[in-house]
């Protein structure tokens, strides 16, 4: 059974970002691949008011046997996939533990008070250092800039899924992703998503410098 490839059961992934970045879609894509592989998966989301400029998290609980609740208990996230740098810190502060691993997009989405010049957004080096202090390993990639290069910022979430796959932390493959997008999307869209996925794999592999996690 697929359960042998989970390092913990339940294995918990938190996909985080700011409303509108596509993290809800990302978590559903990840979960759909895992359900197709035989896992019992729960995805917890908040939407509604949280969409409007707020932090948005999706909790993905993966198990070989049980349906787990859609909320990861405190300090039990195994992996954090973050579309926004400071959101990684916010999630680690509540759900991280010394063995957590993180995949982080380096593109800030400024909170309103930062836009207004009332509060400063931390420098990317400080963010990187803070994340490093709260997890076992992390990789930071330029998913938004890569998505813009591919022609549409919404692809940033798929680039992050590719990066997550490259870390080998969650048991799904490129073929699983290909199967999913070719079943659910128009051929041209599926191809673009696959291109974004591959870009994510490449960026993460470069950032990890050949070291396995």
């Amino acid at each position, binding site marked *: 059974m697929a359960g042998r490839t989970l390092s913990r059961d339940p294995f918990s992934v938190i996909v985080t970002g700011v409303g509108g970045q596509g993290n809800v879609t990302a978590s559903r894509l990840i979960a759909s691949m895992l359900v197709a592989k035989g896992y019992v998966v729960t995805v917890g989301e908040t939407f*509604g008011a949280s969409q409007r400029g707020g932090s948005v998290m999706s909790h993905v609980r993966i198990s070989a046997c049980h*349906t787990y609740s*859609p909320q990861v208990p405190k300090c*039990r996230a195994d992996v954090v996939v973050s579309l926004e740098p*400071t959101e990684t*810190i916010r999630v680690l*502060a509540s759900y991280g533990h010394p063995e957590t691993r993180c995949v982080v997009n380096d593109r800030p989405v400024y*909170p309103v008070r930062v*836009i207004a010049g009332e509060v400063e957004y931390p420098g990317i080096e400080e963010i990187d250092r803070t994340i490093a202090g709260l997890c076992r390993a992390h990789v930071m990639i330029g998913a938004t800039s890569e998505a813009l290069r591919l022609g549409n910022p919404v692809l940033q979430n798929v680039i992050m899924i590719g990066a997550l796959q490259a870390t080998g932390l969650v048991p799904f493959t490129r073929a699983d992703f290909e199967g999913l997008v070719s079943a659910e999307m128009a051929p041209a869209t599926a191809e673009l998503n696959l291109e974004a996925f591959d870009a994510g794999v490449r960026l993460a592999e470069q950032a990890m410098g050949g070291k396995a996690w």
Partner: protein
Amino acid sequence: MTDLMEVAEGTRCLLMGNAAIARGALEAGVSVAAGYPGTPSSEIIENLSRVADRAGLHVRWAVNEKVAAEVAAAASFAGLRSICTMKQNGMHVASDFLLHLTGTGVRAGMAVIVCEDPGALSSQNEADARFFARMLEVPLLEPGDFQEAKDMTRWALELSEELKTFVILRSVTRMSHASGTVTLGALSGNGKKAYFECTGSLLDFQRGPMITGPGAVTYARTVQQGRLRQASRMFDQSPFNSYTGSLEPRLLVVSSSACALYAREAIEILGAWDRVGLLKLGTTWPLPEQLVLRHLAGAGEVLVVEEPQDFLEDAVKVLAAEQASIAGAKVFYGKRSGHVPPAGELNCDVVIGALARILGVNYEPAPKDYADRALAATFTAPGRELTFCAGCPHRASFYCLHNALALKGKNGFVCGDVGCYTMGILPAGFEVVKTAFCMGSGIGLASGFGKLGAFGFDQPVVAVCGDSTFFHAAMPALVDAVHHEADVMLVVLDNSGTAMTGFQPHPGIGEDASGKRARPMDIEAICRAMGAKVVVCDPFEVEGTERTLLSMLEESSPRVAILRQECALSPHKRAGKRFKIRVDEAACIGSRCGCNRMCTRVFRCPGLFWDARAKVARIDEVICTGCGVCASVCPSGAIRKEEAG
């Protein structure tokens, strides 16, 4: 997204709780589904509307929850299975009709599906609609996972038909808006001919007229209470009630819905299965009395884990008191003992806290030094306050309203209503909204304020409501305001859809839930027909709108301004930007501008940000939607807009 009609029986797939409920209704052969959008319930009707044609359904976004319940009941009377859906406070809107519906019962199965929002994640209340089951004397079902969301919806319709009463199925945000693994069952066709048989005798509610009246109330309640006793006996055998743990545990946990998932994981994390048993109930009113009693008798102490109110705790305690000779004297823990928080949403950690306290064990989720570092790190991440999206017409509307009210003077204010625009209470809406209650209450309150002139009241009063809210509950209050000639101005923030909950159509839109042509109601014509003076403006034309609002504030009879501009998230708008926006850095005078960074500090659109190093405002290309409003806001004309190609 999974197509609910295409997926075959036996397929295992990932379904959102609300999609699982929709599939359950299809598996039960539902014919009619009606609801009013409200988080976290909206996706049930949305899922059904996508398959309405193929499944032969009538799916309807009703004008409000009460009408939705009436539409569903009509189907049941005519022999067709039906559901109606709503969020928790919608139950309060529908309850007048539902109260009377218990006086006749139903014919074909009818389920009232209420999706609650404990913790008010996207609500202004955390009402516990389960109490309606007790008040109205109807059965209550609570799915405990995604499979059950589907299976219990199907069962709810069967049970309703068997007992001849409607049944309430209650979900919560963490079920409705979460997704999980579901194995699908077979679809049933509906295909029945609808016919309302009403030739039978009075009080024969299966063949006669469906009438509630003074003479029939005692009889009808007696019949309904008999149905509840039958339900309790059926629930004793239900597979949706289950027990995990040893036969005579030190502590019995009684729980339902998402809370049962938290409880199971909490017991697992504490490694306490040797001391703790979990009775997970799927049928919570009436209680499966014999089953609960059996487990009470075997347990030492009892902890009830539920949200948001102590509904189950009450019911279990009453049963334990009535049957004290069987249950024995028990120590109860729960909300009343302070072991479970009396308000707010629960989660696994809350349950771990309650269990650890009762069992006398210590639990630290992370090593101390890690927890200290984590706490320190939170100060690195600046908080995110809620705001309107970039390009949201509400920001422009509230900007105009704020300025008009400021120019008018006399401490005018806005009575808010329910929608994204409730955020008019925040800096995002320039804090002009000073009251916020339920659907339609803005104009109702304003109509009241507008008649206080006789008591020396002279503050200008403006009510706002969205286009969907206008139809739902603002219309009767506007009638009242016009009828009594209240000094009030209603601003309809018309963004062409029920935007906050995901763009459901409403009576002002030319299509229905399943995309078929529907007759659009014209808000402007309705208001004129009521006798109000009406103007229509585009809030993106900032100066003109401000002028119009100010001149309307000078008047004193009931008047309506419709500020019409489509939501920035609407499918058309997302397709492209109207304007290309740029900041002329040489012209931007930043903190020296009259209002000190007017665009970023005051207007605060997420598409603009203050570059502190260069001391100029900048446009964030990824976020800016090209609405062009900031170009009107900038006092020095530094923000330039040109038509995008």
